[in-house]
């Protein structure tokens, strides 16, 4: 046994992934941190950029427009039906990049870990992150780890940033909704928020509600491939469909008319919303998008969306109208009318 070769290794023993816990040395920049990266993050996120071990990732860029986005994730609980903070952190940022019509390419990931966090859970989250990234066709090319004292953070926070490339001719933005445009929705509302709230409140339903957390870049690529003139794309996350539509009405200086009966909400989600006192239109989604397009193109785009697994239930739910007051109005199921408003206050903390 050669002593020199042993001391050159970053740590003498492997991490105890069964019972070990993160301690302050794992964020101190020394051997322990190196070991955490080598044994947990690098294998899970496995790609040539990370393998080089530099403090940054270098890659070639193509001509044209690039987009960049960032998002922090503080969801509680960390593991929920249909996903965990790792997969959510990939899906969230991939979707924010994709809503410009872009093809997401690279992500960064930053971890703020509370002292005492189980290594097994960290490894599970890293693996889930790697799987989500591979499935979405993106690479986590650079990252950072910090450990804070017990009580200074709640278990684990994750930040991701992403960049992507916009195909030529695509100009998607929240200020491009025009009166007469059709509003398309890719699927059912409220699944993610209700899955988390029900889990947190200890509610059990006959059918388990599962988060819809998913990467939408594949669906967007199919849509952009057949139609470059999509006016607006957006994923209705925090604040739900209501917040998304109000944002767009303000950006584009228009109003909207929706049809409540056309908006898909799963019966078990609706039931849980009744119990929890929530409006499904205010509840977060993590795998759905809305598209606003000229009315004459709606049928063509709808067919493309329905052909994709994440757009099977896509449907037209309303239209953009001229309205200086920028109201989002909705014909109710029983034939009345109401406003769909922003949510006031904080009904659902730490949903993503």
């Amino acid at each position, binding site marked *: 046994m050669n002593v020199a070769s042993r001391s050159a290794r970053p740590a003498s023993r492997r991490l105890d992934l069964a019972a070990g816990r993160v301690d302050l040395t794992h964020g101190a920049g020394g051997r322990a941190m190196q070991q955490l990266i080598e044994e947990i993050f690098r294998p899970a996120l496995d790609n040539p950029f990370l393998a080089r071990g530099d403090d940054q990732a270098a890659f070639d860029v193509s001509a044209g427009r690039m987009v960049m986005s960032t998002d922090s994730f503080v969801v509680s609980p960390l593991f929920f039906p249909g996903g965990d903070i790792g997969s959510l952190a990939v899906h969230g940022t991939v979707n924010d990049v994709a809503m410009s019509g872009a093809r997401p390419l690279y992500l960064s990931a930053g971890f703020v870990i509370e002292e005492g966090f189980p290594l097994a859970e960290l490894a599970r989250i890293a693996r889930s992150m790697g799987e989500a990234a591979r499935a979405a066709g993106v690479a986590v090319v650079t990252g950072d780890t910090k450990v804070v004292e017990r009580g200074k953070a709640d278990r684990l926070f994750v930040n991701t940033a992403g960049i992507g490339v916009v195909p030529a001719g695509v100009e998607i933005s929240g200020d491009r909704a025009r009166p007469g445009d059709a509003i398309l929705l890719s699927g059912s509302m409220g699944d993610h928020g209700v899955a988390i709230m029900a889990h947190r*409140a200890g509610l059990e339903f006959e059918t388990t509600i599962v988060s819809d957390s998913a990467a939408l870049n594949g669906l967007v690529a199919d849509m952009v491939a057949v139609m470059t003139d999509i006016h607006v794309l957006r994923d209705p996350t925090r604040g739900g469909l209501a917040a998304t539509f109000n944002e767009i009405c303000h950006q584009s200086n228009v109003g909207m008319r929706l049809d409540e*009966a056309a908006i898909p909400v799963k*019966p*078990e989600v*609706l*039931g849980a919303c*009744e119990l929890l*006192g929530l*409006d499904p239109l205010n509840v977060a989604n993590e795998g759905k998008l809305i598209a606003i397009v000229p009315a004459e193109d709606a049928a063509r785009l709808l067919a493309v969306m329905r052909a994709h697994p994440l757009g099977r239930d896509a449907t037209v739910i309303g239209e953009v109208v001229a309205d200086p*007051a920028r*109201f989002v*109005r909705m*014909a*109710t*199921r*029983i*034939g*009345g*009318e*109401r*406003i769909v*408003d922003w949510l*006031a*206050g904080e*009904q659902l903390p730490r949903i993503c």
Partner: protein
Amino acid sequence: MKHLDEYRDAEMARRLAAAIAREARTDRRYRLMEFCGGHTHAIFRYGIEDLLPSNIEMVHGPGCPVCVLPTGRLDMAIRLARREDVILASYGDMLRVPGSKGQSLLKAKADGADIRMVYSTLDAVKLAEANPGREVIFFAIGFETTTPPTALAIEAAARKGLTNFTVFCNHVLTPSAIAAILEAPAIRELEAVEIDGFLGPAHVSVVIGSQPYEFFAEEYRKPVAISGFEPIDIMQSILMLVRQLNEGRAEVENQYIRAVTRDGNLRAKEAVSRVFELRRDFEWRGLGHIPYSALRLKDEFAAFDAERRFDEPYIPTEGIKACECPAILRGAKKPTDCRLFGRACTPETPLGSCMVSSEGACAAYYTYGRMREAAQ
């Protein structure tokens, strides 16, 4: 949850709307008060007024527990929360209600007061068990629906021998509030409110039964229809009231027969009477002082009464002068009659309690119905 669809059926709603339009006489007005904030919320959320003829007017009542709590009681809660060693456990909808001098529980929390949001009374008891060195005060508010859980929590705390759990009791009684509205024109200086009939509360009536309303129907000649919370329930109850008024009847009718009986929930009522007794006087926002309109803990549970444990005086406070919450809670004014509505007072920056709670009339108008005002 298929059950819900039956009560939100568009075809059924159309048929009921047609029946109401056919039977409502054109030579009179129907001013119907929905007592309960839950009904107000549903009326706006489903746009029920769009399906009613113009001579049927829904008047919004005071049945919103957050709204009727006077500023002075909220100030007491804030002072309790700011005490060293106190954890104040509260339902979430109280946190943003404005107290005097721009205070709120949310602001006190940001200043460092230990205020925890709980979903149930038993969570507050658990909090006391988990923090033996701290005083846990449960901020109890609400009508007859939330009173039984508070009673059970106090009994549970007594059984467990907890010495650090108390309740700041603000439970109030529905029949007293209805009586106050009906008597207002005769014995008070408040604006007279003409009400032709009442849509009776759903959940409150599940507990107290339909019997307590019989007095109002007889004594004041006002028909009552106890109504469920779904849009079809409400439409059907409106039709029942129109028919009673047309026929000159003033009875208690029960539309919500799938949940309400004449005597209510006896076990819940027993739990309440074991722990609570009538309070001689309680101030309501909008309705003023109403004798025997609220509950306090019985002497045998005095150890669990935050008002007896902590020496916090009740200091009556005037709300913001321009705020019309008091008149709105009596049904004397509509939210849109208030000059603060939608301008200085919105759900993001509420100045009055009716704009905070989702059951408040101002919040319902603003959130679901303000396009009507804009169109006028």
